[in-house]
């Protein structure tokens, strides 16, 4: 589900069946019915505005507006009494239309930048089936705790599959990324994403979303020419993210910008609580700017008391002005 870590029992579904029904009315109705009870509970606590129409970009394979709140819980399986959360991803190259003039060859997972936001609960076993269809070798290196065999620094060649298996721990927010050299190029072309490991006791219900800051070195000069939140430069500048007044927002924020050593994330007209690396249940600090080196990530929480349109961006303003810029549209409750 999009908004709360309630670990839907997807495993009881026949996956093929669901896929066959796909996006038809049947699939949607059935989905809504099964989850109805939970939804009513949650919707009383968490309010998410309807998404604006026409948020998709014609020339791109993914939509940053839906990607924002799209969490991949994989498929829950039980093997020998152990809970296994299975995910499947494919690395390949695909073109991104970064703006009307610039088409960029991205290397990514499942045709999206960032890759899927994987989500599991602490202590569950993660099985990640990684296919590489790209011409270059790639790998997936996860942050978090795991044995050396699962560290994801060995190259997986074109046409091969590798199965990464490890326990989801510790709870927190962990980036994953390709670790083949030159890592700067493999990351900045788009091979990264987030793994959220939820704590044993769930966090408070909130409007949860993922923001990943990335940079694009479009001419291979080891400097970024463009930057973006969630893959597409200036997307949320031109299409503000709707949130409700007074609604608690939980941001899973990652800096995956290569070549620039750090950025300072800032939201306008408000303060936020910081849960560093997502490793705490109580806030570490309150501020409105937080400096993050490459691969640093935190959970930020805030609610906007006044309606209106508010900027968020790194306070390295040249980076903001080159694409890493967005707005929250705070709608009266």
């Amino acid at each position, binding site marked *: 589900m*999009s*908004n709360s870590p309630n670990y839907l029992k*997807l495993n009881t579904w026949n*996956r093929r069946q*669901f*896929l066959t029904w796909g*996006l038809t*009315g049947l*699939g*949607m109705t059935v*989905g*809504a019915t099964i*989850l109805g009870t939970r*939804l009513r509970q949650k919707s009383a606590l968490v*309010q*998410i*505005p*309807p998404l604006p129409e026409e948020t998709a970009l014609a020339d791109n394979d993914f939509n940053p507006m*839906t990607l924002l709140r*799209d969490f*991949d819980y994989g*498929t829950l399986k039980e093997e020998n009494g152990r809970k296994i959360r299975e995910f*499947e991803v*494919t690395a*390949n*190259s695909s*073109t991104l239309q970064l703006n009307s003039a610039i*088409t*960029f*060859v991205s290397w990514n997972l*499942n*045709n999206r930048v960032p890759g*899927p936001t994987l989500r599991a609960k602490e202590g569950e076993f993660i*099985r*990640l*089936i990684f*296919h590489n*269809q*790209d*011409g*270059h*070798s790639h790998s997936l290196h996860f942050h978090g705790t*795991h*044995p050396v*065999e*699962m560290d994801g620094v*060995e*190259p997986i*060649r*074109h*046409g*091969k*599959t*590798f*199965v990464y*298996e490890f*326990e989801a721990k510790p709870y927190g927010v962990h980036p994953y990324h390709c670790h*083949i*050299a*030159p890592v700067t190029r493999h990351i900045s072309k788009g091979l990264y994403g987030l793994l959220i490991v939820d704590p044993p006791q769930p966090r408070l219900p909130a409007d949860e979303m993922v923001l990943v800051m990335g940079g694009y070195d479009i001419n291979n000069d080891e400097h970024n020419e463009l930057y973006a939140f969630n893959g597409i430069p200036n997307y949320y500048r031109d299409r503000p993210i709707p949130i409700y007044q007074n609604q608690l927002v939980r941001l899973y924020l990652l800096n995956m910008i290569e070549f620039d050593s750090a950025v300072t994330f800032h939201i306008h007209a408000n303060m936020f609580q910081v849960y560093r690396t997502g490793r705490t249940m109580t806030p570490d600090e309150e501020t409105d700017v937080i400096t993050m080196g490459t691969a640093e990530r935190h959970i930020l929480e805030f609610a906007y008391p006044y309606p209106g349109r508010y900027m968020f961006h790194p306070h390295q303003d040249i980076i903001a002005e080159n694409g890493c810029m967005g707005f929250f549209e705070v709608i009266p409750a």
Partner: protein
Amino acid sequence: MAKQIKAVEMFLALSLAVTLGACNNATTDAGEGGEAEVVEPTETVNQGGEGGEGGEGGEGGEGGGTGNADVDYMTALALMKGHLIVAEELIEEGKYAEAEPHIGHPVEELYGDVEGQLTTRNVPQFKAELNELNDLAKSAPEQPETKQAFTEAMELIDNAIAALPESQRQDPEFVLGTINQLLKTAAEEYEAAIADDKFVELVEYQDSRGFVLYSQQLYENIAEEMQQERPEDHEVISSTLDELETVWPSVNPPDSPIKTPSEVYGLVSEIELRSS
């Protein structure tokens, strides 16, 4: 979209479908131009971490590839050769900076794939030599020491290839298996070099050239036997290889692509069809 479904519910249903859809794509997306190789993660080698305490280690492992350890081994080494072939061309033109990534690729992207196999096959490890060459290419590209390290690296790769019995290296089935892997990788790289019908990535153009050039070299080892035993297949394969080679007229890309990525995939598929 049905308006009566509340936004949150609709989003929920959609995101579920999208999530599952993404999984589905992962196995069925075969790419453009008929590379219909669907890799199923069935073959799970238990090479993973028994090392962790309390069974916390993964049991993950590798699958896919060709299913033939010898072809797999040869392919990784052949890809190394392809990278160094274009590196050498670039060095000859004095383009040291352009050569550098191709000198890095063998150790960065491929060595890990043969590391265990080298031990199994009693071939001395040569990662240190590849690393040294890579260091020198970055720090002292024009020095004679770098040229010497380059020559040595080529010899070490040839030496690893020579660990395969001669009969196998001359065997059409084996060689064609390797060539097909090389060409599929070349097609992927070629596609990743182009956007809006222009070359935007030099490295990938050059990579794909190297793989096609080495495929030609490998085919020479079996051309005579193919001509005698399978003349029709030989005719198609050798003429298609020649046609493919025209797509990369030199180590520097042409002003605009001579063939589209799908045309290249098409030629690669033709060779594959004639290979078995």
